[in-house]
């Protein structure tokens, strides 16, 4: 699906955000990226989504080097990649239905995109995506009427609607309460699994990552520290990763490390149920 070869990214101000990144994922794989703030998780996702170009090294994406493509080919490639943003980039005055339908603008012919501004082209599809995130009733509301958590889920609904082969998620549930966060990540994992799409998510809450993803990538200071199956990721390893942050590990609901799942009391499924 994608493969990074010793990729390095230096910002224009000279700051080296990523170095020696070697990472690959096969079709249908699901992996979570964890690490302290400033570790380079977002930059890595932007590198994979072709929003940033590696200053050194190479990236193979969906069967080729994206930066060797023509503009039109690159655009078609990008239409096959979906990104869920931490702060969803939705115009406040846009309606939810339009914001969700915008996910397929890269696949639609241009006239369909224009026509959809006059009358939404696929209300049923947009509604179906929203219903999976329990937002069906906000279909025709304006985005600025939504709370931060609802807006984040509209962003995810757009990603679901896009039906991309590669789904990248940058802290996609940071504004949601623990139960809803777990449920939303489960929806994303389930959707990707059902379609055989690859899912890469950066997550702040390590317990959420461990409970939903079979493979965990730990990052720190722009480097990949470990890349292991979830079973091999124990608290000691994570504590070391987050060593400078002080206190315990960042968890979904703030329980001390080792208490595995946040909402077990609420009757939610125990660790490891949302992947097969």
């Amino acid at each position, binding site marked *: 699906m994608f493969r990074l070869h010793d990729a390095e990214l230096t910002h224009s101000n000279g700051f080296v955000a990523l170095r020696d990144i070697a990472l690959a994922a096969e079709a249908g794989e699901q992996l979570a990226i964890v690490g302290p703030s400033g570790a380079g998780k977002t930059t890595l996702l932007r590198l994979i*989504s*072709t*929003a940033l170009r590696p200053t050194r090294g190479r990236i193979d994406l969906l069967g080729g080097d994206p930066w060797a493509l023509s503009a039109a080919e690159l*655009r*078609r*490639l*990008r*239409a*096959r*990649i*979906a*990104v869920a*943003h931490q*702060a969803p*980039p*939705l*115009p*406040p*005055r*846009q*309606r939810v*239905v*339009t914001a969700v339908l*915008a*996910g397929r*603008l*890269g*696949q*639609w012919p*241009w006239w369909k*995109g*224009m026509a959809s*501004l*006059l*009358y*939404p082209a696929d*209300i*049923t599809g947009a*509604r179906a995506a929203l219903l999976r995130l329990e937002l069906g009733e906000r*279909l*025709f509301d*304006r985005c600025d*009427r939504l709370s931060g958590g609802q807006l984040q889920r509209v962003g995810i609904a757009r990603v679901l609607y*896009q039906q*991309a082969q590669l789904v990248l998620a940058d802290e996609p549930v940071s504004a949601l309460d623990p139960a809803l966060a777990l449920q939303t990540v489960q929806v994303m994992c389930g959707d990707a699994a059902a379609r055989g799409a690859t899912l890469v998510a950066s997550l702040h809450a390590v317990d959420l990552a461990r409970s939903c993803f079979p493979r965990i990538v730990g990052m720190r200071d722009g480097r990949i520290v470990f890349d292991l199956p979830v079973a091999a990721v124990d608290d000691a390893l994570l504590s070391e990763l987050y060593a400078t942050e002080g206190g315990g590990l960042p968890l979904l609901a703030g329980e001390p490390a080792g208490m595995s799942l946040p909402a077990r009391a609420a009757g939610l499924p125990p660790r490891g149920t949302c992947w097969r």
Partner: protein
Amino acid sequence: MKHPRDPAAPGRAAALLLAIVILWPLGVIGEFHPWTLFEAQNLRVMGGFLAAFLPPAVGGEFLAHLGRATLETLAIATAGIALAFVLAVPLAMATTQALSVSRIGPGPGRRRGEWLRAALRVVLVVLRGLPELVWALLFVRVFGLGPAAGVLALGLTYGGMLAKVYAEILESGDSRPARALLEAGASRLQALCYGLLPGAAQELTSYTVYRWECAVRASVVMGFVGAGGLGQLMDQSMRMLNGSEAASILLTFLVLVLAADALSGLLRRQLGETDGRAGALAFGRRSSLWLLLLGSALLASYLWLDLGLAALLSAAALASMAAYFGAFFPLDLSPDWLASVAWGALETVAISALGTLLAAAAGLLLALPASGRYGQAFEQLTRFLLNALRSVPELVWATLMALAAGLGPFAGILALALHTSGVLGRLFAEALQNAPPRPRDALLEAGTPSASAFLYGTLPEVSPQLIAYSLYRWEMNIRMAAILGFVGAGGLGQLLYVKLSLFQYPQASTVIAAMLLLSVAVDAGSAWLRRWLASPGG
């Protein structure tokens, strides 16, 4: 599962239908006949005139005239805008909701405050409801030919405009700091300086400089009614179809506008820089220098123009003024005259609406390259084109368009469209540049074609601003459309010009009243429309 329908669709369809139902008759009234542009005779006249543009006139005597007229134009604009500023600041402070003390609580004197605010709003409407050229035309008959009438006319009209826009800018920002200060017992002036100006000073300054630039253009036109400046020269050259002189004068307009542009940009950048200063002095050395320069420019303007303002306030002058304005009453309200005035008003509305609509469409198309999305070269090229379009006053465009399309309202539509597309294109480009880039970038990163990314990611963010700009320009264009009749482009202006020339003051004052009414109606209408657009589902 029930198939959901878009609840907003019927409203949109109705709005579209309404737009067609309104625009069609406007097109008929405005004699919207684009094909007249391509008639052989019009093409020949226009072609001959344009061919004479090259080379522009550079004779020594002509250049001396041009230089003197340019200086006079600048002086009229500067003195006029200073008078307008002096009028506008207290009016804006009194009318803005952001500085209302009585609204807190609500406290004592709330009713009185609202009445006062409403009364002052009426004063503002009267001040800016009449075009500066109408004020100038009226004042020229009292104060005689010369720049005094121009300065006063500019001061009154722009005072009303500045006050309104200042009040709106103060209301549009974050009002909480000022409110907190007022709640802590600060005076309005203190709350303005400590709570509102830090956030709004930059916008206020840049708008004032922009208005000064408009004042330069307006004072250019003052010459057409005998109030001095470049207009006089332009009028002569146009009458004689002297293309090379007209070209020189048009180039002078362009240079003037570009210079004002550069000054505005410089000022804005410097305002941004002083923000970061950590010194104790509020004004840095450079700001003090600017203020000093501004002061001397004002002084020079008043000295150069030799206005003799004291003489204007003598008893004899006041008495003759009273007698002159007394002749305008009572208004001629006979049914026949009212009918012709009503038709003139309709024509004015049609000219302004179609002109603004064309300008908004052209402005948006030009704003796309001007906002830099097709590269540096296109940006510079379209910016130059926009500057050229807006540096030529509407009235001058109207005289040119009367050559190209014949006399009548269609020339007025074209004139407004040409000038306003320059103005709107520039404003639109700025709005596009300031739009948050993330929604569009995210769409582009998802492989969206750039046109769709613009429509889905950028336009929803900027459309309220674009519509507000267009509505505001329409409001200004209604007043402008009323003047275009002075050079034979239809509407109320034609009636007023004829009646004033014939000294038929009661009829003229009916036309003036109609202009005011129109302005009030547009004010109310555009405010309502803006509220409706800001409401959900709009």
